[in-house]
C-alpha cells in the first residue's frame, strides 16, 4: 500500500539536496524525461496549427471556469438523466467517506482502480484500507509504486524513478504469482503484470476511476489511457465510482476535438492514445456514481493570477521539460503533483502553512520552459512569482531584502556600497563566503570585485 504524501516532513531544498546525490535516480530521470521530451517535440512539431490549438484549449478552459457553476449543474442534470448518481464532495474527507460508503453498500471488500490523480490527491486508497477495503491499482506504473510501497514521482509515469531491473526486483519480491525466472525485459515485465491483473479484473465487482474530461452537455466522462486496464475496469465491474475534480469540465462534445489532440501529443508524445473510453451515466448491468471533488479548487478559482492552474489537463509536459524536476525528482515536491505544475498547484490547494508547501513556489529557476510547452498556456512562472509574494519569508531574509531595497533605491547609497566593496575586495574570500552566501561558494567561485564600479568610471571619465 503506497503511503500518503500528507504531512511529509522537510522542504524542497532539503529533499532535493538528497535526491541530486542519487546517481541511479539522476540517470533514470534524465533518460526518461529526455526521451518523452523529444517525442513530444516531434509530434507537436508535426501540427502547423499547434499554437492555435493551444490558444483554443486555453480559451475553452477559461470560459468553462468562468461559468463553472452553470456547467456543473448542467453536468449533474445530464448524468442523473442518464441513470447515474452525482455526489458533491467539499474536501478529501467527504469524498473518501462517500466512496467508502458506496463500496461498503455493495458488500465488497476489494476494488480495482484506474489510474487517477484525484484519488491520489485525497489519499483514497489509505482511507479505504482503514474501512477494510483493499484497492488494487491496475495501471502498470501505479502497480509498481503500490507493490514497492513507494510514492508516485510523476503525474503520467508515476514509477519514472524506477528502471527495469528495480521493477523486476519489486515484482519478484511483492507479486506472489510472478514467474520464477522473470527477466528485466520490458515485455516480460508487462506480461507478468498482465497475468497478475487479469485475475483481478475478472474477480472485482467494484471499480474506481477518475476522468480526463467531463462533458456538461451530455454528461459523458472520458478516460484516455495506454494499457487497456482502464477499459477493463470501466466495463467489467457492476459498480463504477468516478472521483473527478470540478475543473475537469468541458461544455460540449465538440470541445473534445481540441483536447484529444492536445493531451496525447503533450503527455505521451503520441498522435493519439491507444484507448479512449467514454461513458454516459449508468449502462445496463452497471451502477454509476460520480463524486465531484472541490478540495480547495473553488479557493484557487477565486485567485485572479493563480486560477489559471485549474486549466491543467495533467499532461506532464512541464515535468518532462523542467530542469529542476529532472534533477530533484518527483518525491522532493512532497505531493502527488510534482514538477512545475505541482509547485503552483500544491501550495494553492493545501496552503503554505507547512515548511514544505511554503518552499514549493521557490522550487524553480523561472526558466520558462514549462510555459512554452504547456498545452493550455498556463504561465507557470507568473503564478510562481505571485505565490512567492504570498509565501512566508524568514526574518533574516526579509531584513536582508529590505536593506538591499533601501540601498538600491538611491544611487548615492548604491555608489557608497560599491566603493566599500571595492575597498574590501582583497578581503572577499573567493571560495568561502559567510552566512547564507556560503550556499554560493560551496560549489562556485565568486567573481573578482572590480577596483571601480561602472558608475564611478563614468563619473571620472565621461561626465562632461
Amino acid at each position, binding site marked *: 500500500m503506497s503511503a500518503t504524501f500528507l504531512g511529509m516532513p522537510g522542504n*524542497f*531544498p532539503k529533499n*532535493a*539536496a538528497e535526491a*541530486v546525490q542519487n546517481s541511479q535516480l*539522476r540517470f533514470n530521470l534524465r533518460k526518461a524525461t529526455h526521451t518523452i521530451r523529444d517525442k513530444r517535440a516531434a509530434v507537436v512539431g508535426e501540427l502547423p496549427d499547434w499554437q492555435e490549438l493551444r490558444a483554443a484549449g486555453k480559451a475553452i478552459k477559461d470560459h468553462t471556469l468562468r461559468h463553472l457553476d452553470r456547467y456543473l449543474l448542467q453536468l449533474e442534470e445530464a448524468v442523473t438523466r442518464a441513470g447515474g448518481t452525482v455526489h458533491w464532495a467539499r474536501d478529501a474527507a467527504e469524498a473518501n467517506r462517500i466512496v467508502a460508503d458506496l463500496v461498503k453498500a455493495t458488500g465488497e471488500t476489494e476494488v480495482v482502480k484506474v489510474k487517477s490523480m484525484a484519488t491520489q490527491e485525497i489519499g483514497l486508497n489509505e482511507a479505504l484500507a482503514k474501512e477494510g477495503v483493499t484497492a488494487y491499482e491496475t495501471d502498470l506504473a501505479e502497480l509498481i509504486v503500490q507493490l514497492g510501497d513507494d510514492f508516485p514521482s510523476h503525474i503520467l509515469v508515476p514509477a519514472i524513478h524506477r528502471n527495469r531491473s528495480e521493477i523486476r526486483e519489486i515484482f519478484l519480491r511483492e507479486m506472489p504469482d510472478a514467474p520464477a525466472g522473470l527477466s528485466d525485459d520490458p515485455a516480460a515485465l508487462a506480461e507478468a503484470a498482465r497475468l497478475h491483473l487479469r485475475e483481478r479484473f475478472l474477480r472485482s465487482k467494484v471499480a474506481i476511476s477518475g476522468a480526463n474530461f467531463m462533458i456538461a452537455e451530455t454528461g459523458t466522462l472520458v478516460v484516455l489511457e495506454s494499457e487497456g486496464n482502464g477499459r477493463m475496469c470501466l466495463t467489467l465491474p457492476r459498480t463504477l465510482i468516478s472521483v473527478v475534480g470540478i475543473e475537469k469540465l468541458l461544455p460540449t462534445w465538440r470541445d473534445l476535438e481540441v483536447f484529444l489532440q492536445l493531451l496525447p501529443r503533450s503527455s505521451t508524445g503520441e498522435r493519439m492514445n491507444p484507448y479512449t473510453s467514454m461513458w454516459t451515466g449508468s449502462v445496463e448491468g452497471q451502477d454509476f456514481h460520480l463524486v465531484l471533488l472541490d478540495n480547495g479548487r473553488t479557493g484557487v478559482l477565486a485567485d485572479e493570477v493563480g486560477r489559471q492552474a485549474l486549466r491543467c489537463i495533467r499532461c506532464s509536459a512541464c515535468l518532462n521539460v523542467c*530542469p*529542476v524536476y529532472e*534533477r*530533484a525528482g518527483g518525491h522532493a515536491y512532497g505531493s502527488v503533483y510534482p514538477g512545475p505544475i505541482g509547485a503552483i498547484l500544491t501550495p494553492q490547494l493545501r496552503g503554505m502553512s507547512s515548511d514544505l508547501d511554503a518552499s514549493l*513556489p*521557490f*522550487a*524553480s*529557476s*523561472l*526558466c*520558462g*520552459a514549462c*510555459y*512554452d510547452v504547456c498545452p493550455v498556456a498556463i504561465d507557470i512562472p*507568473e503564478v510562481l*512569482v505571485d505565490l*512567492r*509574494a*504570498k*509565501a512566508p*519569508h524568514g526574518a533574516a531574509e526579509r531584513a536582508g*531584502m*529590505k536593506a*538591499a*531595497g533601501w540601498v*538600491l*533605491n*538611491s*544611487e548615492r547609497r*548604491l555608489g557608497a556600497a*560599491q566603493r566599500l*566593496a571595492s575597498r574590501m575586495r582583497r578581503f572577499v574570500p573567493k*571560495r568561502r563566503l559567510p552566512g*547564507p*552566501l556560503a*550556499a*554560493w561558494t*560551496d*560549489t*562556485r*567561485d*565568486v*567573481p573578482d*570585485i*572590480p577596483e*571601480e*564600479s*561602472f*558608475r564611478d*568610471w*563614468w*563619473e571620472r571619465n*565621461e561626465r562632461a
Partner: protein
Amino acid sequence: MRVALFVTCVNDTLFPGTGKAVVSLLRRLGCEVDFPAAQTCCGQMHVNTGYREEGVRLARRFTEVFAGYDAVVAPSGSCAAMVREQYPKLVRPGSRGAAAVAEVAPKVYELTEFLLDVLGVEDVGAYFPHRVTYHPTCHSLRGLRLGDRPARLLSRVRGLELVPLPGAEECCGFGGTFAVKNPAVSAAMGADKARGVLDTGAEVLCAADNSCLMHIGGTLNRQRSGVRIMHLAEILAATEESR
C-alpha cells in the same frame, strides 16, 4: 539618436567592463550614449523573490530615470525582459506610474536587439580570434525571443570560431536567488551546463547575461577548467586596435 545605457546593477557593481564595452561599441556605430546617473536596479531580484513592494518602487524609479530617451539599451536579456514583460503586469494599468511604464518599457532593448532591429547593423566591425560558444540565457531565449540575433552578430566577428553548445536551451541553474535558496539543484544544473561548455572545446563562453555567466563561470573556475567567461558585448566591442 539619444541612447541611454541601462548598465544594470550587477554589471555596474561586478562587471564594469561590460558597460564600458557597450559604450565603446555604440559610439563606434555612431550613437550618442548617455548614462543617467540616478539609475540603480530594475527590481527583478525583489519581485522574483516575493518582495513586490520593493520591486514596484524600483520599477517606478526606473521609468522616471529613463523617461525621454529614444532608446534604452541594456547588456542583459534578463533585465530587459523584466522591464518589457513584467513591468506592465507589476504596475497595473490605472495605478500610479502605469503611464510611465507604458511609455518607457517598449523603448528598452537588449543589446543585440538594438544593434540588429534599431541600428540595422549585423557586422559591428569586431575582431576576436578565439573559439567561442554561446549560451542563450532563459530570459533572452524564452522571454525576449532573441532567436538567432546573437549568433548572427557573432558570426560576423572576424577571427571568431563559433561552436554550438550542447543542450544550449537548458537553463544553467542560476535563477537569481534560486542559486542560494536551492543550491543543490542549482549546482547540479550548473555542473551539467559546464560539462556542455567543456565538450565544445571553446576557450570562451559568452552570453547576454553576466548573472548567468557568473554562475557557470564560478563553476568552471572551481573546476580550474581554464574556460573564460565574457559578456557578448565585450566580444562585439573588441577590435584589432583594442588588442
